[in-house]
């Protein structure tokens, strides 16, 4: 049994006046635990739709997604988004009025967890992403690469088992992008977290252990 099993995954959008668009048309793949996988495809291939579904943001799909044999629909959606997956976005999506520390701790605001455990985890992650000297800085005081590091640390704060990264290097120059990929690789190695990286760039995909290619809503 694979760690993540995606079976006949379909997502159809109703566009009004009876028009339907099939963003995903029967996607199937397996991912083993701790793998670093990339999903590659051109614009409109269904990459973002797949990521939204795996990230627990879109539940209007058909087919099955199993994690360790358990259908993700059996999870409470909020629990799933907190502890099963952590998402890193291309646009970073940091809260402008919150500091680096506060942005990383943002998911904790919606939980009852508190205390030493969290502060140790925060220190560890800030150290890992190399932002010790930027803890109190606001997002506007950070470079793109630093902002993405904050987003990665935020995704990791709850120690999720899977990290979904949506074009994490898309807004960065190649050097900074490479540094981010190395950071993700380090996370994958050290934290044993399974990473699913979505990209349109085949060069970036080469960085990962396995590549899933999507074309017109199907994996080929």
């Amino acid at each position, binding site marked *: 049994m694979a760690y993540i099993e995606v079976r006949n995954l379909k997502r159809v959008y109703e566009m009004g006046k009876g028009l339907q668009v099939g963003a995903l048309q029967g996607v199937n793949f397996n991912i083993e635990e701790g793998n670093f996988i990339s999903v590659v495809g051109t614009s409109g291939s269904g990459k973002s739709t797949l990521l939204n579904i795996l990230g627990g*943001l879109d539940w209007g799909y058909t087919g099955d997604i199993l994690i360790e044999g358990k259908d993700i629909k059996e999870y409470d959606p909020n629990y799933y988004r907190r502890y099963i997956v952590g998402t890193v976005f291309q646009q970073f999506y940091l809260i402008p*009025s919150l500091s680096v520390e506060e942005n990383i701790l*943002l998911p904790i605001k*919606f939980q009852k967890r508190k205390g030493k455990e969290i502060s140790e985890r925060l220190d560890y992650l800030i150290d890992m992403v190399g932002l010790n000297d930027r803890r109190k800085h606001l997002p506007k005081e950070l470079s793109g690469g630093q902002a993405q590091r904050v987003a990665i640390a935020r995704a990791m704060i709850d120690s999720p088992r899977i990290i979904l990264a949506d074009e994490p290097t898309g807004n960065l120059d190649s050097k900074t992008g490479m540094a981010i990929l190395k950071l993700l690789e380090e996370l994958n190695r050290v934290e044993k977290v399974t990473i699913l990286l979505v990209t349109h760039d085949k060069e970036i995909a080469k960085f990962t252990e396995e590549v899933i290619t999507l074309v017109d809503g199907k994996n080929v």
Partner: protein
Amino acid sequence: MVKMFKYALNLVLRRKLRTVLTSLGIMIAVMLMSFILFGMTDLKSALLSELTTRFKPQELYVSGQDSMSFGGMVNAPTKEGKVKEERILTNELREEIEGIDGVISVEPLLFVNGLELFLEGDDIPYPSKVVAASDLPGTHHMYKEFYGKKEILESNDIFVSKFVVSFFETTDEDILGKKILAKSSSSGMFLSSSSKSMIDKEYEFTVVGVVDTANDAFWINNDTALDILVDLGGYSSPEEYISNIGYFQLYVDTKDGKTKEIERYIDEDLGLFVISSETILGFVDTLTAGLTLSLILFGSISALVASIGIINTMIMSIYEQTKEIGIIKAIGASNLQVLIIFLIQSALIGLFGGILGLSITFLIMKVLDPFVVETLAQQGFLDISQFFHFQLGNALIIALSSILVGILAGIYPSMKAAKLDPVKALRYE
């Protein structure tokens, strides 16, 4: 919850100017409501307390003319009232009223106008040129307080009010035994409708008591007043004066349970103008109720406008924070948590308006209170040392109400925010 509160506070503080402007509506509503709670209640009780001390339910005030309004007509004018002829309150009428079943006593009231009143050793006359006359004792409840040597006015005795004591910058004790010189003056001629002629004359009185009255500054007894009126008016006798001019008012004391019946008889059968204590108290009640209602109405309208303002601001916030809502949902915030965050924001706007309104009201009260107390004292309400009473309990109720208004106004926008689709929210530009 504390974490969510801090986050909501952060969101509100990000929009300081808008928060302040939105909370202005709540602030105005709170100010109006505060004035009702901290001022109107006391005004009503002060007025009623003052009037119930002076006027008893079984008392009637009878006049031959429609001149007994209190700052305006007590009752709405009627055509019937208009055709009511003015009558002279003669001794015959007085005796007739005395003979009505249930009447305990009838005390005539007179006014002598146009006298300049000087205190012994002082050159400046008292501003009022009116001397009232009645045979009621100084301890009668019409005078709220009495301080003096004699309770009953004899010839050439005079009671003065606390106003007079205050005007002549003396004390209740010091003024007793002093002389009051009353001089008729030519200017008084225009004030006195009861004089046929006016020749400069002087009358001397001795102060025997200090009374606390709402209106009149000097009181002498009826016989003395009649002698002066006869003297000033050129009448041959008190009887002639009463036959021609009549008493100013008759103060009628009745037995309990008979007052209404007697009031109706005097009004309808005798054709006189009559006011009962009940009418006066009812008038005060109506007046204060009207004022309270107006303030409540304006307060409610302000609260409604403020609510619309909060709804508008919160909906604007949703548009501004759409992406942020998407982010927090994507990292695990539930719909309920988003709802709570927005409700906390609107409650904070309400609370801010409440605190702002209460603070400003508190300051206004502090500044205005001495002026209101002084004004009331000038109108005879001498017992009121503080008009506005800022009560912490009521302030708390107002603050909680403003939070409630904020929450109610925030329900729709909060639900709207909670229902946002995270995928669409993240794509929102």
